């Protein structure tokens, strides 16, 4: 039709689409244009331009808008939203297609299920432990107040009551500030004697945490005094388990550490966690005369509105200065605060609860994320290979008028359906595997009771599914629906020629997989190396065949030092008589347990100038034969023995680390040390060093050994004999009978509870269990990545060989050596792998530094690990390419011709 604006009309035709309504509209405009053009062609053109533009502008609105129905998609039988109808049809089609290819569907969905299952499992842990808020009201306002004394090398230790009360009186940054101390009490009148977790708190502890009693009340300030009648709040768990949820429990008496105590309240259930306190008791500290310089108490505060944790710490700093002037008048104390560079530390409560596991958990999540990516790459490869076979189908659909977008939608729907299948499987796998995973991590990850598969976890699974479908579905969808690919039909091709562009696509995926697998392998290799270093660490003691347990002697039954010493004497005698026990001793703090107390000491001949900080030395108190029982080397001198108290001289034993620090290159025997510093009003008596022993790891395997002074248990009669003792018994045979030990204890005191019965080996393992857990999980992920990566490479090479069968046949027929053919396949596999390894090395180079906090005596860029893992992965890749290579070499020229 002459004169009509052709471009505009074509555009309009495109906007209106191929439906009958659109075409009739186009026809109407044509017809009217023809009529108008007969009279005035130019006016007709103007008219057409205006009206076509108007229709186009409206068309968009009408299609989506007023009428609620599109001009294009009139569906005679359609019910509801046509978009949903289309989607539903796509889903039905996708399910039909996938059911026709069960092998592909099963392999792909299992691969995805592995990846999604891993992500969901770890995310549910991350979610429960790190992301869910604490159960307290306004948990983000709750903080712990700690101490810091970098000048002494102390990082984050507790608070002292005198400083707490000074803070409490003068601070401006908290709504409430409460003090507490965890401990254990002997519970004696409810059946078997037991030691239960307790916490001593100031009266405002419950209001600070926002706790409302289920029953009864918290204690009042006047009940938190040294002479007040004894009262206790019991935990919900205590109430339900031990008191059978009795509603008449208030006013009842229980016996804690031998003292009758009245129950005045029951705490809510949300306060219960693993290992949390069962009873809450007042501190019984006089606020006007609090113990000074005893940094063994924790403080929890509720921040005032608009005050951050950092601001709160800054707000406490001037108080410390005032405290130095007004309260800490003794020279030692002031020196400790000044020279020790004492600073208050304020941490969010949740940081303190989960801070130590945050890094490993995020690393694990990142790791399983990579596994999911590798799984996606594998599925994408399957999709690409399969799409080769479907080329004809897609071309036919296109020829019959399917638009490219509908073909893409179709392929993507298949990906989505597959992803849903894999995700459902993965969530099911994760739900089944999660309890096992949690059993692997007992006691090392806080808040594990919060871990479950909930809405957030399922949401993440769905996001993972959609994202993975996009990752593995989009590339094939776009690649196989573009014009040149759809031309396959016209060219009469069968599809499945080894088109370089497609080969590049497949190779790229394998390169990505190899790179990710290498990163994971290097990471887990570094952890394994760290673990080996950790295990090779000199413990300083022999954990084999040593059984340990703990007792706490109550005041009521053992009021005097002599009573405690008598009990210890009798118990060690009874234990030595247990069959199979070679030697027995007792100690205040076991190795690897941290928490050996430290205090100011003075070394003879090394006087401390006034205002100077005395050395803070940590000490333990031990019974005779401790070193023999624990297998700690006695390097010089002698052990304690029962007669030590008689000669009126006080004796100590020091470890090698201490001797090297204070008497470098000298003989420590005969040297003298004493508690406290010179210039104290009443100097403590000197103690003479009688023995030098090897250095045991006191604070954990990863921390450097600590200089220690050992005091003899027999010599503590004058200055507070310890009531909490760990007994150690070395067996002759493989192990000491726990039952024999129990009977021995009860033969001495039938009402004595025994806790923490463990072998030293268990304690050693327990001290690295968090590390082992991280290593194991990362190792599993790396193994999975390696397997998936190898399968991916194998699949791609196999497929390439299958496509090249004819070409290889021709080559062989023309006299090529089978070994050459084989080599060319292996070489192409090696080339792909090498590219992947190069990228993976770069990635590992950048990523392993995130492991720095976890590694032990291992560099994040450890060359041996990098080289070893690269080589290992390369070898695996070669093996994976060997099978397809052999198949290629075995191609029969005759057969290969017949395949066409």
């Amino acid at each position, binding site marked *: *039709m002459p004169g009509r604006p052709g471009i505009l009309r074509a555009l309009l035709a495109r906007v209106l689409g191929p439906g009958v309504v659109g075409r*009739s509209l186009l*026809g109407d405009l044509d017809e009217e244009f023809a009529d108008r053009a007969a009279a005035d062609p130019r006016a007709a053109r103007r008219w057409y331009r205006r*009206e076509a533009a108007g229709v186009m502008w409206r*068309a968009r609105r009408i299609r989506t808008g*007023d009428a609620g129905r599109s001009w294009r998609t009139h569906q005679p039988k359609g019910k509801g939203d046509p978009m949903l109808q289309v989607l539903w049809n796509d889903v039905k089609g996708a399910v039909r297609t996938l059911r026709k290819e069960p092998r592909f569907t099963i392999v792909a969905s299992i691969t995805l299920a592995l990846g999604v299952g891993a992500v969901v499992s770890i995310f549910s842990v991350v979610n429960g432990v790190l992301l869910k808020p604490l159960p307290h009201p306004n948990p983000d306002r709750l903080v712990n107040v700690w101490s810091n004394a970098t000048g002494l090398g102390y990082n984050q230790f507790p608070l002292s009551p005198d400083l707490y009360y000074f803070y409490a009186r003068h601070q401006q940054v908290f709504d409430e500030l409460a003090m507490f101390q965890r401990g254990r009490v002997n519970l004696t009148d409810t059946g078997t004697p037991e030691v239960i977790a307790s916490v001593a708190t100031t009266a405002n502890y419950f209001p600070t945490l926002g706790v409302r009693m289920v029953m009864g009340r918290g204690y009042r300030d006047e009940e938190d005094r040294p002479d007040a009648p004894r009262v206790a709040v019991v935990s919900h768990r205590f109430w339900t388990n031990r008191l059978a949820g009795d509603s008449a429990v208030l006013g009842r008496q229980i016996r804690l550490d031998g003292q009758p105590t009245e129950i005045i309240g029951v705490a809510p259930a949300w306060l219960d966690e693993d290992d949390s306190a069962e009873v809450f008791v007042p501190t019984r500290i006089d606020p006007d005369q609090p113990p000074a310089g005893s940094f063994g108490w924790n403080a929890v505060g509720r921040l005032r509105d608009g005050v951050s944790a950092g601001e709160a710490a800054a707000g406490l700093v001037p108080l410390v200065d005032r405290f130095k002037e007004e309260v800490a008048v003794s020279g030692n104390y002031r020196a400790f605060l000044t020279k020790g560079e004492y600073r208050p530390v304020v941490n969010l409560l949740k940081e303190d609860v989960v801070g130590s596991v945050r890094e490993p958990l995020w690393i694990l999540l990142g790791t399983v994320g990579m596994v999911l990516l590798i799984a996606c790459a594998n599925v994408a490869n399957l999709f690409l290979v399969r799409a080769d076979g479907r080329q004809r189908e897609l071309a036919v659909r296109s020829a019959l008028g399917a638009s490219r977008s509908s073909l893409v939608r179709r392929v993507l729907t298949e990906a989505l359906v597959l992803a849903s299948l894999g995700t459902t499987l993965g969530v099911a796998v994760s739900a089944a595997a999660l309890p096992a995973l949690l059993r692997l991590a007992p006691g090392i990850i806080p808040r594990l009771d919060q871990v479950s598969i909930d809405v957030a976890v399922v949401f993440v699974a769905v996001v993972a599914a959609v994202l993975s479908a996009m990752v593995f579905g989009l590339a094939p969808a776009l690649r196989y629906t573009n014009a040149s690919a759809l031309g396959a039909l016209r060219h009469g091709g069968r599809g499945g020629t080894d088109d370089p562009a497609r080969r590049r696509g497949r190779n790229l995926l394998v390169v990505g997989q190899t790179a990710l697998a290498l990163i994971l392998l290097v990471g887990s290799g570094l952890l394994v190396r760290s673990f080996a270093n950790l295990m090779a660490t000199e413990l300083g003691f022999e954990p084999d065949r040593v059984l340990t347990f703990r007792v706490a002697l109550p005041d009521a039954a053992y009021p005097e030092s002599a009573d405690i010493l008598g009990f210890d004497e009798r118990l060690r005698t009874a234990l030595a008589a247990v069959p199979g026990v070679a030697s027995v001793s007792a100690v205040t703090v076991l190795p690897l347990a941290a928490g050996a107390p430290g205090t100011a000491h003075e070394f003879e001949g090394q006087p401390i100038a006034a205002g100077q900080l005395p050395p803070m030395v940590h000490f333990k108190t031990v019974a005779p034969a401790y070193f023999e029982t624990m297998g700690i080397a006695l390097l010089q001198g002698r052990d304690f023995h029962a007669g030590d108290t008689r000669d009126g001289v006080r004796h100590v034993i020091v470890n090698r680390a201490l001797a090297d620090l204070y008497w470098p290159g000298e003989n420590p025997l005969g040297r003298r040390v004493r508690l406290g510093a010179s210039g104290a009003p009443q100097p403590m008596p000197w103690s003479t060093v009688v023995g030098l022993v090897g250095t045991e790891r006191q604070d954990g395997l990863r921390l450097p050994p600590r200089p220690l002074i050992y005091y003899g248990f027999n010599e503590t009669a004058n200055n507070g004999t310890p009531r909490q003792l760990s007994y150690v018994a070395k067996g002759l045979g493989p192990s000491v009978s726990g039952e024999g030990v129990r009977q021995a204890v009860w033969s001495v005191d039938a009402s004595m509870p025994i806790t923490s019965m463990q072998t030293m080996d268990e304690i050693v393992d327990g001290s690295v269990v968090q590390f082992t857990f991280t290593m194991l999980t990362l190792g599993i992920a790396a193994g999975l990545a390696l397997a998936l990566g190898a399968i991916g490479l194998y699949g791609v090479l196999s497929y390439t060989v299958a496509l090249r069968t004819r070409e290889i046949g021709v080559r062989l027929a023309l006299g090529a050596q089978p070994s050459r053919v084989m080599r060319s396949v292996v070489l192409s596999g090696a080339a792909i792998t090498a590219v992947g390894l190069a990228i993976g090395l770069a990635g590992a180079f950048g990523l392993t530094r995130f492991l720095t906090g976890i590694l032990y005596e291992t560099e994040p860029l450890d060359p041996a690990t990098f080289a070893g893992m690269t080589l290992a992965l390369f070898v695996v890749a070669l093996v994976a390419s060997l099978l397809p290579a052999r198949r290629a070499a075995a191609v029969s020229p005759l057969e290969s011709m017949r395949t066409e």
Partner: protein
Amino acid sequence: MVVDVWIPDTDSRETMARERVLGEFEHLVLLAVLRHPAGVIGSHIGRELEARAGRRVSRGALYSALDRLEAKGCLRWTVEAGVPERGGHPPRRFVVTRTGRAALRVYHRAVNNLLAGVAGRF
């Protein structure tokens, strides 16, 4: 060839009650279609309106009004064979449904009621 495309459910009272409300332009379009008892082709409706109502009619507005009227059950259409003048594209023939006529009745009753006594004042 005549192909009967989808005919909306025009007889339900529910539909009538809900969708009888007509806009001013829709009202004019409906009347323009009603003038042709045997139905009218889309391209003629515009010219009919321009001739009789004396106003320029945007084809975009016209077709969206037709679409809305169809959705309200006031119009239905059938497709007829295309002719060369139309580039072979099939025309649609619109007729007013019973619902459409009912809607016009309701509208005119309202207008008549309101006009009673005031017609001379403007």
